């Protein structure tokens, strides 16, 4: 993987890896956002249930 030749190939390989890493970070952040959103709904739901009882 690290045996990339210098020049154009190495630049393309560098860009490809950076895109892959950026995509992984974006997906992780989106997942975290969804998790916080659903957990908020779960907690609000639990509070409503306990208040109603």
């Amino acid at each position: 993987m690290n045996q990339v030749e210098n020049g154009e190939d190495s630049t393309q390989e560098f860009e490809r890896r950076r895109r892959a890493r950026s995509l992984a970070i974006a997906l992780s952040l989106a997942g975290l956002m969804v998790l916080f959103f659903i957990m908020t709904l779960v907690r609000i739901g639990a509070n409503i249930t306990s208040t109603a009882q």
Partner: protein
Amino acid sequence: MANLTSVKIISPHASGEVMDYFALMKPRVMSLVLFTAFVGLVLAPGDIHPLTAFTALLCVGVGAGASGALNMWYDADIDAVMQRTARRPIPRGLITPHEALAFGSVLAGGSILVMGVLVNWMASGLLMLTIIYYVFIYTMWLKRRTPQNIVIGGAAGAFPPMIGWAAVTGAVSLESVALFLIIFAWTPPHFWALALVRKDDYDLAGIPMLPNVAGEDETRKQILIYAIIASVTGLVPVALGLGGILYALVSGSLGVMFILAALRVYQRRDVDAGRKAAHSLFKFSIIYLFAIFATLAFERLAAIIAGSFGMI
């Protein structure tokens, strides 16, 4: 001591693949950590929302991965000279030490924060303690200084079931401490068996593991002593009512096998047979820990399922 100044960490501008960063998180260690945390979560009394349980395990997994990445950042010099670790991402030049440091730090901070906000702050505090213990006390302080490194440092690997327990109860209890003690007592014979097999590797890196400092015979004796302690500790959940009859049978019989495997290591002293016995003990110790924790979880889950169908 190895001449570590001759070791070069190549590629100052390396930027690895996504999978190289995943490898930085020590996925095999992470899987055992996740499993023991899951068992702690299952055994704890009380209810937890499945999504909260998932979040707790996610944070434990990411926190364990962060510890692994920070360990690889600090130990990059010795990893490069050891055969077992030379293929890790930093020695191979796929990721720079600075990238590993940043990656590990962000994941450590993130996992502690998310655990606190979405699960509870007791679990978060224990997760923080685990990461700090592994990185600062084990990796930076003990590992290169004392042959007792894995005895004291073993506590870091023993915390996860307590974190799982705390995720449900928000507290530390005698039962969760018993789970901690099982892993704590299991760690020395597990790692010293590996140290016997990899003695030359540790010599090369200058790590003061017990076989390198006190000799192989002393290590064999210590392995046997700790295997007995670990097997007895494995029965503590029975005394606390955490494990039932099935657990007592599994833990008792596997404990005897653990001691017998350690006894074989103690008796077989010629090079090839000795290494083979040590390697067998290393592999068996993983099965032992997995099996007794799996049995604890199985008993509890079976009771929950039986209870939900009105069988008990």
